[in-house]
């Protein structure tokens, strides 16, 4: 096989990114995939093919519970984030006037602090002697601190909704910005009230942003590890925490790999299904 000058130039250009993606994306994934079919005995890896890890991952009640809980938390977080983010994006896009850039800037300010710190702060806010309890005691609404605030799934949801809000606001904002304002005048001219206009024009045309936001939030939150660890307590733990335990303390990397692959499959298939369901909204206008 001989390469023309142009081919060589192309390979030179693509070479580095190709090696980069190979080493940092494909190889780790392939390794994990291979690992999930092996077994580990203390520190020794046995490289004989087995489906035992998958059998365990899919059928043992503890893993089923964790998968279900992770899905449920991630789903709830996605729904609430979109519900809270949409009005914010709508406000900036339609009423931001000349200050749109300022508003977007303000929204990204919390991101200057590390994610870990922001999640940790929820502990400070929701804790037994935390900000919220102290405040409620101070105004006399309660006599002793509320304990249901922290260390459960609700706390995880709350913290994640807060943490991921900007990732929903930005894509929704962009899709709202793209809506030609004369379409709104046209719908108004054709008899729509503001309410009808929202459901007939604004929402359908902003769906690309909403779908993007859903994927951006749903995919990472299902595998979130830090937040449940910090504010989840024992009944707020998610699948990523279990994967971590299997990889480290339990010395069972193959099972961890099988759990990871399973979680990948679940997230992947749900995301693809979701995109297919919204196909008609995702045309490029």
């Amino acid at each position: 096989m001989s390469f023309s000058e142009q081919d060589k130039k192309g390979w030179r250009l693509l070479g580095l990114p190709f090696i980069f993606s190979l080493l940092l994306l494909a190889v780790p994934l392939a390794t994990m995939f291979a690992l999930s079919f092996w077994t580990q005995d203390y520190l020794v890896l046995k490289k004989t093919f087995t489906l035992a890890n998958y059998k365990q991952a899919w059928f043992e009640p503890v893993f089923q519970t964790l998968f279900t809980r992770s899905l449920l938390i991630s789903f709830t977080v996605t729904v609430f984030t979109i519900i809270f983010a949409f009005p914010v994006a709508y406000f900036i896009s339609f009423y931001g006037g000349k200050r749109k850039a300022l508003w977007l800037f303000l929204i990204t300010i919390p991101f200057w602090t590390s994610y870990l710190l922001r999640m940790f702060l929820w502990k400070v806010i929701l804790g037994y002697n935390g900000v919220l309890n102290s405040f409620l005691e101070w105004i006399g609404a309660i006599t002793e601190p509320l304990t249901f605030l922290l260390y459960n799934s609700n706390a995880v949801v709350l913290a994640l909704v807060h943490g991921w809000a900007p990732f929903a606001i930005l894509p929704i904002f962009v899709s709202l910005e793209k809506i030609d304002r004369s379409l709104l005048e046209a719908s108004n001219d054709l008899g729509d009230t503001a309410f009808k206009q929202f459901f007939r024009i604004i929402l359908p045309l902003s769906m690309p942003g909403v779908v993007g936001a859903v994927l951006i939030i749903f995919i990472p939150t299902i595998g979130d590890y830090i937040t449940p660890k910090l504010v989840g307590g024992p009944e707020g733990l998610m699948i990523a925490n279990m994967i971590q335990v299997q990889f480290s303390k339990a010395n069972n990397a193959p099972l961890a790999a099988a759990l990871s692959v399973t979680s990948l499959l679940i997230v992947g298939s749900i995301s693809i299904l979701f995109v297919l369901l919204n196909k008609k909204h995702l045309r490029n206008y």
Partner: protein
Amino acid sequence: MTNGGGIQEGNIVDLISIQKTFDRIKAVNDVSIGIKEGEFFSLLGPSGCGKTTLLRVIAGFEVPEMGDVLINDKLVNSVPPNKRPTNMVFQNYAIFPHLNVAENVGYGLRNSKLDKNLLQKRVRETLNLVGLDGFDNRSSTALSGGQRQRVALARALILEPRVLLLDEPLSALDKNLREQMQFELRQLQKSVGITFVLVTHDQTEALTMSDRVGVMFDGNVDQVATPEDIYNKPRTKRVASFIGSMNFFDAEVSVRQDNSIIALNNNLGKIRLKKESVFGMEGSKLSVGIRPEKFKLISNDNKEAGRAVSAIVYEKSFLGQTKLFNLRFKDSENVITVSTSDLKNAPNPHIGDAVKFIWDEEDLVGFYEE
């Protein structure tokens, strides 16, 4: 202003002393216009003259700071667009990209809780009216400019508005299609009998399509009249120069008579104008206008040569049906343009030749200079 304003019997739209300001600039300044039921009315003017703002005031998208808007004798100042008996064809057509052609056309009817079969029937009828048979399920993003325009038209007409507002609907089309659509729009307006209000900056478009034209400059309406009157009897100098082309001469008023005014110009000599075709605040300085085709080139042996004026041809151009001559006077900067369509009989001087021309006094218009 005396331009057809004020509430009159048979008016579908009455604009009374409308004023609208954007960022301290008066887009519309004390405008009063009455639009008659069933007519094709055009708002004509250069860009930025306030014509679109005025249209949007009728539609309800802009609320004037001062003045009243009456539609069908009802005060609609505070009525939002969705409650007004008007519909609009937007300049960019504003076709909903996520809906197909039939859904776009039926958009407004969906609000009327019409039976589904009846709605579909109405959509098909309206598509037929605008010449888009069989386009029902076509994606609205796969349409040509002309087709988009027809969809926008159908979408507005299906609601049977009392007034259809068209904001430069033809400006995005190429020349041939534009001329065809001018004709079709006019035919459509006659057949449906709905009042059309068209905004345009294209003089030919306004003149060929309209029953009446309102000419606007800098937020003011200078004249509201039939296309013939706008062309032949312009009321202000800017109307005269905006519509078609016109030669202007500075002249000094020398004699005022009962029915006519005699003015003097260096090149043309004594000019007699009818008093009724001289406009503006009376003064001593006059700008006299005459259309190029109203000048008549004559040969030396013509019996009217006695009253003719002579000038030198320095440019000539052939435009098919007409010929244009640019003439210059001796010892003068003044240039005039003469056009003739009588290519057979009129003299055909060469560049550099002296040529004689005459005019009729009823073809002159005069505007007092401030």
